């Protein structure tokens, strides 16, 4: 089994770094999300409560960031799990495509929901 070097430099460093950056940003967004959404005396989960909160642009921005970064981080993270395996090219491209498409779709869905207010 002679070792063949098949891999290449294709943004490994960058996506690795962005995973860390988005992770740290998410850490703060997550704290904000938890405090604002669930454990604030004023918060509520009724339609009206959500509606009223959504009028606040800061709040909306936070949710938007969460959706975008969360999906990026999640997709990138899952892709990095997939890449750990020695899969053949077509399989890994298929998974890659599925991940990206799902990310875009869910991202759009999330954003539409947020924008509908």
């Amino acid at each position: 089994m002679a070792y063949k070097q098949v891999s290449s430099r294709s943004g490994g460093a960058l996506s690795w770094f962005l995973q860390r950056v988005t992770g740290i940003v998410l850490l703060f967004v997550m704290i904000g999300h938890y405090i604002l959404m669930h454990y604030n005396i004023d918060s509520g989960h009724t339609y009206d409560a959500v509606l009223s909160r959504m009028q606040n642009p800061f709040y909306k921005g936070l949710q938007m960031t969460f959706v975008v970064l969360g999906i990026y981080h999640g997709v990138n993270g899952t892709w990095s799990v997939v890449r750990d395996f020695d899969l053949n090219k077509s399989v890994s491209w298929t998974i890659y495509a599925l991940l990206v498409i799902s990310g875009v779709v869910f991202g759009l869905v999330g954003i539409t929901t947020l924008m509908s207010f």
Partner: protein
Amino acid sequence: MELTVRIQRYDPEKDSAPHFENYKLENVNKTDRILDLLNRIKWEIDGGLTYRRSCTHGICGSDAVKINGRNRLACSVLVQDLKISKSTIQIEPIPALPLEKDLLVDMSSFFEKYEIVKPYLIPKDAPPERERYQTNEDAELLFESAKCIQCGSCSTSCPSLWVNENYIGPAAFLKAYRFIFDTRDDATAERLDLIDTTDGLWRCHTIFNCVEACPKEIDITWHISQLKKAALRREI
């Protein structure tokens, strides 16, 4: 004391698959090396037992085996160092490399990876008349990585290698570090190119199995983190 040593045996000329064999040893001292036990079994019970060894004190890197579930050097672990349940010690070959016979594996892919990181000094200028100067601090930055004895315990303990045999692995990274951070070397970019790859640095998820397994107690993950940062620095 009395001890059972449970060893994975496999002779490709006879067996279709590896199996375990138990050996009862009497008069085992708690200060015996595991290698001493293997030797006793080979010399007194079954001469067919096959494994590598040479120096007997943890410096040649021949005898990395999996002892009680973890990679270690048989000559650097004493019976008293192990948590022994039911008076049994289990010995298997190190994982993830092709099995050859009993505890002996084919290390060639491990060494091929070592070779691809250009494991030799590449200076830009012709050498001076006398030695190149280097501060002791700069020299000592290399010492920990230079301790490596190429035993293979680290790379074969890494889950990233278990799932992908192309993973370059901690031992080769360490060798790359040894030169990239040598003030006398001028091939940093060239070497980073070879490990800043999808089968390279980015497959290390700081699992630390390598550090746990390293008999020379090298903080391999720390060294890898220095390499990751060096690779990142040229991107941003």
